[in-house]
């Protein structure tokens, strides 16, 4: 990387009178939430220039997707934003289902809603724990992991995995949730508000925390829109925009919840937005449970969905279909579409161009972390080095998604 100080650069620095120093923060810095390098030009402790250098985790997901069948791409999406893998799964299958022109069954839809919102809570808990640990509040991390563990248990119950689920399939879900799932979610929903109170009393009015975050990393509403920020980063700046409300999908219009919006656009407002969002997600899960009725979790279309195992092992036709699906995948009509959901970091979208074959001609991932990270120089230039860490924390980036 050319940003690494060369001998030439150090020489210029030694000779220059302005005493500007170039500091490489990362890619192995603990508070960059992964492998992010930030090149900082400092004068004393003031950041004069900030240049994030992402890309250390680039795996070419978009290129790989061009050679895989649609259902084979689901596991790739898990590894984008790995702390909210389920949201990525849904965001990917959504445009494919739209291209195919299929509607998933009611039950699959509500299970997706429940799991997406639980995932949002889990993702925000990771953010809560890690961003506060960067500021020196280690206890918060331990508290957050406790509740997240319960959510991961629910996911393990539903699909067997705790981090990379691959639970979504085009046309529904891998399988139905087991018996006892609803009770377990209900138990979590009842217990969560008490735990949430502990989080806020621990941190929200803490004077050290307020000093570190109030008035830090301010981004105005105009700048936020101009920079393309989405999710809590946009709402923290006072823009009331939530896809679940404004462009409802999956029956979110039947659910009563509020969208927290900040006023000043500083780190503290973004913190408050995310905290409140957890409670609202909890409310959504509570209501979505009431809509959950028994029924199928896959569309009834043998061209898209694998036949049940019992049939594949006993009937010749089902077995042929099984083989054909596994070897060839399924064709998707020619066309292009963009599917998006309100992910935990912001608007996560998949733009798919199909040429009528069984794999996408082009797949573009609109990653909220990547776009949101772009606002880091705007937030930090002219401020102290320590504020850089606070800002990275409240933008809430996951490098798997930034680098793709």
């Amino acid at each position: 990387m050319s940003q690494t100080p060369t001998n030439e650069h150090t020489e210029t620095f030694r000779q220059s009178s302005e005493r500007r120093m170039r500091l490489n923060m990362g890619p192995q810095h603990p508070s960059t939430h992964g492998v992010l390098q930030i090149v900082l030009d400092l004068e004393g402790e003031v950041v004069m220039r900030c240049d994030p250098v992402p890309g250390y985790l680039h795996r070419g997901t978009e290129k790989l997707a061009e050679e895989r069948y649609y259902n084979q791409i689901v596991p790739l999406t898990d590894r984008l934003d790995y702390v909210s893998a389920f949201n990525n799964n849904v965001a990917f299958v959504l445009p494919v289902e739209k291209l195919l022109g299929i509607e998933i069954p009611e039950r699959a839809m509500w299970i997706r809603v429940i799991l997406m919102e639980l995932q949002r809570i889990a993702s925000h808990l990771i953010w809560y724990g890690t961003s506060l640990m960067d500021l020196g509040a280690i206890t918060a991390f331990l508290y957050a992991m406790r509740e997240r563990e319960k959510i991961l248990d629910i996911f393990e119950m539903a699909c067997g995995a705790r981090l990379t689920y691959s639970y979504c399939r085009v046309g529904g879900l891998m399988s139905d949730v087991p018996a006892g799932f609803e009770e377990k979610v209900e138990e979590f929903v009842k217990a969560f508000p008490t735990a949430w109170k502990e989080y806020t009393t621990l941190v929200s009015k803490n004077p050290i925390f307020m000093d570190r975050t109030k008035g830090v990393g301010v981004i105005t509403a105009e700048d936020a829109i101009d920079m393309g920020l989405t999710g809590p980063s946009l709402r923290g700046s006072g823009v009331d925009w939530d896809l679940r409300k404004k462009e409802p999908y999956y029956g979110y219009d039947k659910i009563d919840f509020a969208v927290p919006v900040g006023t000043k656009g500083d780190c503290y407002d973004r913190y408050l937005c995310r905290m409140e969002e957890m409670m609202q997600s909890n409310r959504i899960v509570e209501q979505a449970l009431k809509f959950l009725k028994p029924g199928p979790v896959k569309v009834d279309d043998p061209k898209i969905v694998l036949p049940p195992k019992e049939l594949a092992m006993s009937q010749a036709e089902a077995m042929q279909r099984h083989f054909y699906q596994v070897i060839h995948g399924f064709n998707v009509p020619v066309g292009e579409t963009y599917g998006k959901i309100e992910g935990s970091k912001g608007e996560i979208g998949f733009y798919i161009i199909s040429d009528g074959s069984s794999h996408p001609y082009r797949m573009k991932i609109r990653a909220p972390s990547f776009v949101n990270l772009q606002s880091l120089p705007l937030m930090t230039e002219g401020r102290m080095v320590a504020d850089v860490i606070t800002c990275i924390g409240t933008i809430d980036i996951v490098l798997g998604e930034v680098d793709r």
Partner: protein
Amino acid sequence: MPIQESLQVVVKKLQDKFGDSILSTQEFRDEVTVRFKPEVWVEAHRFLKEDEDCAFNMMIDETAADYPLRTERFDVITHLLSLGKAHRIRIKTQTAEHIPTLYSVWKTANWLERETYDLFGIIFDGHPDLRRILLTEDWEGFPLRKDYPIEGYDI
């Protein structure tokens, strides 16, 4: 299903304003795609942003797609969103290599164009800082081009 009324107004306004510079207008699965001639690329986006019926104040995405058999092999694609009117549109154009930057219209174009340059090799004229972003600076080739093998080259 017909497209949103506010979008119908947008499409009509675009046709009045740009006329022959629009190569095609497509409606598919409630989404509208308008293909412009590359000459009006920036002008069209500025119009879409500033006109009060269009009011596309946010650029959601800018990317490209490669069709190696065409002479102008790349499609440059943007997704725009209006926060006030809650409608979206997709804008396209084609180019062989060069296209003017949209940085003067939306700041977010900065990294999105850097990424497109990085992976496709499309040069955005007038971009303030056109460097590679995801790959290292000494990387050879542009991976998302169709003639770049999926397993890569030996290094």
